[in-house]
């Protein structure tokens, strides 16, 4: 409760500072809209449905792309952890492509897929899959070998060993890898939406883009705040429960490490 109060005071103070800066009159309201007008934009956009529609379009792309990325990346990561050859080939490829900023996939996606949903998904998947591969591979390699030995003596082999020992044992690494993959997916999708106008769906990135085109700073800042809130909520709802579970079971503070 105390933490919540402190956080509320902090963000309240930020908004007050912002408002004071606007009221000082040093900057044009075209460049720096007041908090009230931004809140007003968000409220209107919520009421007329544009914001919810755009958020829905964006989140749908994000979830589909992210889940596809995890479904591809997880087994590949487990696979690369099992052999040196795969590590030196697929692992090296993943490491290289992971360093490529995912916005760099946008031109390629446009040429291959055109202005379609496919291009959007492709960019999100490319943003997700490499970091999931690397995190999974890293996790599976860092499992204490004694777990696998103990499991083998108890008769756990093959599929059972992978699903009941290797996978849960690498959970701390998996969760941080999934979280990283999520962050990359989110960033790459925003980049793609700002760059690419497609007719099949109008996402948050597009709203941001048209805010700029119309010189509507209240829209630009309002959408930015919504994007931050969605990212924050995703972290809280999707990953915090896992981190708390790990903390309870492993006794380590995953967040601090």
């Amino acid at each position, binding site marked *: 409760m105390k933490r919540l109060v402190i956080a509320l005071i902090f963000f309240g103070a930020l908004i007050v500072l912002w408002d004071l800066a606007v009221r000082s009159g040093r900057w044009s309201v075209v460049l720096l809209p007041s908090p009230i007008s931004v809140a007003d934009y968000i409220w209107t956009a919520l009421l007329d449905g544009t914001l919810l529609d755009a958020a829905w379009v964006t989140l749908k792309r994000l979830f589909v792309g992210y889940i596809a990325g995890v479904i591809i990346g997880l087994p590949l990561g487990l696979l690369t952890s099992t052999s040196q050859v795969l590590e030196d080939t697929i692992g090296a490829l993943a490491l290289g492509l992971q360093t490529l900023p995912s916005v760099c996939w946008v031109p390629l996606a446009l040429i291959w897929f055109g202005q379609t949903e496919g291009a959007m998904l492709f960019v999100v998947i490319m943003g997700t899959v490499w970091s999931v591969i690397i995190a999974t591979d890293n996790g599976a390699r860092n499992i*204490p070998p*004694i*777990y696998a*030995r*103990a*499991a*083998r*003596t*108890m*008769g*756990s082999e093959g599929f*059972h060993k992978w699903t*009941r*020992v290797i996978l*849960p*044992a690498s*959970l701390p690494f998996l969760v941080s890898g999934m979280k990283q993959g999520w962050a990359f997916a989110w960033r790459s999708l925003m980049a793609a939406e700002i760059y690419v106008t497609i007719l099949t769906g109008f996402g948050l990135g597009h709203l941001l883009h048209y805010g700029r085109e119309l010189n509507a700073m209240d829209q630009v800042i309002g959408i930015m705040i919504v994007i931050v809130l969605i990212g924050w909520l995703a972290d809280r709802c999707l990953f915090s429960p896992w981190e708390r579970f790990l903390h*309870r*079971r*492993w*006794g*380590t503070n995953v967040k601090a490490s």
Partner: protein
Amino acid sequence: MEPLRTSSDNRPAKLIIEEVSKSFVASRAVVHALDNISLTVPEGEFLCLIGPSGCGKSTLLDIIAGLTKPDAGRVLADGKVVRGPGQQRLVMFQESALFPWLDAFGNVMFGLKLRPDLTNHERRKIADYYLELVGLEKFKHAHVHELSGGMKQRVALARALAPDPQVLLMDEPFAALDALTRDQLYSDIQRIWMESRKTIVFVTHNVREAVCLGDRVILMSPSPGRIAQVFDIPLPRPRDINSPDLAGYAYEIAAALKGTLEGAAYE
């Protein structure tokens, strides 16, 4: 394959180790971990393997477990050649190899769930029974990191006993524990062994521990790993690690152990 019997008594042989050799390639040098080891363990024996580090005692345990393949020779368990790990010979490791994603009960259940011949109800009853046997029924749902070192090893013992293995292989299981906890576990493991009459092979580098627990103590010498000497310990049970009766045997074995080290140093 007629009489699988040892010279010292007439119980049937549980484990026969026949001319087992194993070497490892370490950085640039080939290490002869085991050189032509032959050994017979009768059913129900508590056998202790002792020796300085590098004598191959843990390697020998791994080979008996089926986790490591010997370069030459073979291991027979109940007259059958060991080709891989199996629930007939369960291992308890030095560090707790408990799975942190499961609670104490889940860890004990792990091996039981790999027994298709049991119903879930039976598995739960067995797991409860062994947790009670090691005195941890109140910690059934404790997470691994909440248990003390001694409690972790008790759970590990329950987990190894629960699938009812014929042979229990213990690799310095108490080495990382404090003295008081160890003393308690010595009496527990003796009580459990006397009740269950399992065959136990126990690796240690602690002479008193070996004398306290073993029917026989096998002293191994390092580089290459060989059996140096065999000691029978005919003391009554349960034995107290601090009893003066143990001291004579311990003294004798400690002297022989020192001899293997000096011998190795001049080799």
